[in-house]
Every structure is written in structure tokens, then in C-alpha cells.
């Protein structure tokens, strides 16, 4: 077995979730890494949409920002940001919303707004961005984030984006059209909502990860599926593609100059 890091396992596991040909609304960072890795491996026909406007972006390196020039230059077309949110997301054209998170709870709700009290924040996070409506409107939502006790919390400090609300049929009662989060991919495992309660349940452990490790990194008493499996490790070609992508990205973003002093 090739040696690989937890980050590599997470990126590969997340990329595998994307079926070829699906239309994917991509958040920056881990989601963008996973979506582009998918496009460069098993899903060449995946359509990547970024909230800045590119539809069908095919970057050769990972964008550092949500609006890098290469996203526009390689897209089928670039529309305005209002059009992205109105015609494409709210219009119901997105199969998969691919999101990151600062905090997540057992029902896949997300906080990217604030740690502590909104009015007296301990840490002010960047805020909602496109996430609330991506989480609401995409037919399915994938969430990718590192698995830590600070991230996987018993209770969110702030609900920025709704996953399965308070569980059960809460999402439908809120009138949210999409199915909500169907998988959460971390550097330790995969979690999927229980069909009934919608509580996130660990369905796969990444190779070499113990249940206990996941339990300790989760802020609620996390459940494990009866048919818990072990994630297939990254294949050599998946790893090669990912490392190649990261190398090209570092070269591209590092080579520019312009130091602030």
C-alpha cells in the first residue's frame, strides 16, 4: 500500500463522492480540491460552478480564491454573481453543493459565522458567504472538513447553514427543497445521516483509524453504523493526480512576486 497522509485520504475520499456529469457548486478550499481532483480523475464531465460566476470551470491548478482568473479563463461561460445565485442555485440547477465548515453538529448544520456570542464574539469567522443557500437549494450537499473536537460540536454557537435542522423531518418542515447533507467527509472517516433521525453516523473509517479516535474527535457521543466499513485507501493513480495537482498549484501561486514589506 502506498503511503498517504490523512489529508490525502480526505481529499481522495471526498473526490470519489462526485459522480461524473453532476453539476457541482464548489466552495473554496477543501471542496474545491476534492471537486477538481474528481474532475482530473474519474469525473472528467463534472460541471464546476463557483459563486463568483464561472460555470464549467476547468482550472489546471487549484484556485487560491473563489474568483481566480483561471476559473474564468477555463469556464464555459462566466455570469454575474446575482445570476449564479438566482438562476443557477435558486433555480434548482445544482446537483451537489460542496461545502466546508468551521463547526458542524450531529445533524449536519454548519457554523461559519462566530465562535462565542454573536454580539461579544470570541472569534469572529468570515460569515455565511454562499453557504446557507447552497445548503438549502442544492439537490444534495457534501461537507468536507477536518475532524476535531472543536469542529464537531455538541451545539453550534451559531447556525449559519441548515443541514438537517433538529433532525427527522425538520428540513422538510422548514421548506428547504434539497435533500441536505448526504455525506460528511473528514480526515478520519465518512459520516452519513441516519435515514430516520438524520443524525450523522460514521459509516466508514479511513484505513488505520480506530473508532475511538473518531469518538474522541467528536463533541457528541457519535454512533457507528452496524455495517461500518473501511474506506478504500487512495489508489496510486489517485495519489499521483492529487500530488501533481498540489505541486502545480504551489508552483503557480508561489511563482508570482510582489511582497508587501
Amino acid at each position, binding site marked *: 500500500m502506498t503511503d498517504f497522509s490523512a489529508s490525502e485520504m480526505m481529499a481522495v475520499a471526498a473526490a470519489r463522492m462526485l459522480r461524473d456529469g453532476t453539476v457541482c457548486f464548489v466552495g473554496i478550499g477543501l471542496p474545491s480540491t476534492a471537486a477538481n481532483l474528481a474532475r482530473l480523475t474519474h469525473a472528467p464531465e463534472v460541471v464546476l460552478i463557483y459563486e463568483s460566476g464561472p460555470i464549467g470551470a476547468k482550472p489546471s491548478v487549484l484556485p487560491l480564491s473563489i*474568483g481566480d*482568473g483561471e476559473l474564468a*479563463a477555463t469556464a464555459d461561460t462566466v455570469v454575474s*454573481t446575482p445570476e449564479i445565485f438566482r438562476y443557477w442555485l435558486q433555480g434548482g440547477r445544482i446537483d451537489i453543493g460542496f461545502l466546508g465548515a468551521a463547526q458542524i453538529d450531529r445533524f449536519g448544520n454548519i457554523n461559519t459565522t462566530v465562535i462565542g456570542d454573536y454580539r461579544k464574539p470570541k472569534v469572529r469567522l468570515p460569515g455565511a458567504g454562499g453557504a446557507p*443557500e447552497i445548503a438549502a437549494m442544492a439537490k444534495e450537499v457534501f461537507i468536507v472538513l477536518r475532524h476535531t473536537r472543536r469542529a464537531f460540536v455538541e451545539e453550534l454557537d451559531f447556525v449559519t447553514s441548515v443541514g438537517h435542522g433538529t433532525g427527522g423531518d425538520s428540513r422538510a418542515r422548514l421548506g428547504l427543497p434539497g435533500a441536505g447533507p448526504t455525506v460528511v467527509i473528514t480526515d478520519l472517516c465518512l459520516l452519513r445521516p441516519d435515514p430516520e433521525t438524520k443524525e450523522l453516523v460514521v459509516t466508514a473509517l479511513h484505513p488505520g483509524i480506530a473508532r475511538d479516535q473518531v469518538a474522541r474527535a467528536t463533541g457528541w457521543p457519535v454512533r457507528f453504523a452496524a455495517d461500518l466499513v473501511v474506506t478504500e485507501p487512495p489508489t496510486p493513480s489517485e495519489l499521483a493526480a492529487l500530488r501533481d495537482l498540489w505541486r502545480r498549484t504551489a508552483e503557480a501561486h508561489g511563482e508570482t512576486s510582489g511582497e508587501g514589506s
Partner: protein
Amino acid sequence: MAEITSLREAIAALVRDGDTVACEGFTHLIPHAAGHELIRQNKRDLTLVRLTPDVIYDQLIGMGCARKLVFSWGGNPGVGSLHRFRDAVENGHPRPLELEEHSHAALANAYVAGASGLTFAVLRAYAGTDLPAYNSNIRFLRCPFTGEEYAAVPAVRPDVAIIHAQKADRRGNVLLWGILGVQKEAVLAAKRAIVTVEEIVEELDAPPNACVLPRFVVTAVCRVPFGAHPSYAQGYYARDNRFYRAWDDISRDRERFREWMVRHVLETADFAEYLRSAGITVPPERSA
């Protein structure tokens, strides 16, 4: 009708203390030079509006120009936090910053409403989130045909919109392309509009259905080469990712931030001098 003027004159004539100002740009074409000029002219009590406040808003906030921020995502894209923004929100330094916080979808729709002469926008948003609890400008109404519940937000109608574009012609017609963000909507929603451009040309030679802002919706056009740096201008120069990373260090400490701003912004006459002072070489576009 657009007047072609210097950025200094445009900011002096068109931005007043207490104004609501939208310096828009979605990663691409962010009007950094114009932001600097607001700081140089010590504009105060501004209500700043923008979907994605980044470094230039961090600078405006850190220099105490802003009273309030209407926004949907405030960070240093690809790097992390905006330290001056956080210091204002978490500690009230250098002054408290009132927040009106939205999602991108809502704020984008609010600009559309402003551009469309409406007082509010209707969208599917916010259901189940905590945002409405902290923003009284998020309300709900029902479809008069189906009874479904929708979110409503007030239109954004800035006193001044400020954007950067690739080109203008001598008559003041503006052309931009690539990632457009909400810039057209910001200009059309605003009472006055300032556009900085990379160059002023004889003929725009715009492709069919391009994003052209005719001169009768623009108040001032100002030629400021590299005026979007460290953001980028497609067809002209690349995003200066190193500067965004460097900003994390510069802005982390109140004193270092202040010294840097005084030295490179307050004590320089314009953006060209700033670039020289700060030792910035604007990166060329990467060949594909």
C-alpha cells in the same frame, strides 16, 4: 454623464463623510486604489457595503473610516482572517463596527433590487438559520399565489459605488469582462458611481452582449493602472497571492498595521507612488 478625472478629484467630489459606499469586486477587479484614496482623504463614518470585504476593507476599517459594514463574507481569501475587521468586531478597535450581516444570495439580490428600482428583494433564503435573529433587515413574506414563505431584504442603494474595470473609452463608456461579481448592479443601484480603469482607449471594441456600463450611468472615470492590486485585472495582471499572505502578517498587529498604512498609503500621493513605496511588483498573468 461620466467625467474623466483624477481619482483624487473623484473621491473628493463624490464621497462625503457618512455616505454609504460600495467598493465592489468579487476577488477580481477589486478597487484597491480607490479604497486607498478614501483613506488618504480621511473619509469618516462610512457605511461600507460589499459581499466579500477583504484586504481593502480591512484597511478602511483598521484606519477607522467605517461606522458600519453590510456584508456576507469577510475574510482574506485563501489565507484566513481579516485581523483589522476582527479587532473592530471583537474589541471595538479602533472604533466599534456595526454589522448588518447577510448571505451572498441575499446581498446579491439586494443589489439587484437596488439596480431595479425596487425597495426590497424576495428570495428563498435563511429558513432555519440564526441570521434573521441578528438582522432586523431580514423579514419574511408570502407568495400571493401559492402562500409559500420567502425571505425579503431591503434593496441596497449606495450613495456611491466604486468599481475597477479594464477599460473605458474617451467618452466614459466602461467595459469589464471575466468575473463580474455584482459590479454592474452596484453601479446601477448607486446614486453616484466612480470607476477606475486600467486604460482609456479610443474604441472599446466590446464583444456582443459584453458587460458595458454606458457613460450615462457613470459619474467619474479615473485611469489608475494596476488599480486593483493585489486583486487582479484579467487581461492585464495576475492576482498577487503573496501580498494577500503578507497582509496576514502586516495586519495582525495594530502598531505594525498603522505604521505600514501611514508609510505607504497616507504618506504617498497616489497609487503609483504607493506601489513603489511598498516595493510591490505587480505579477504578470500566468500563461496558460
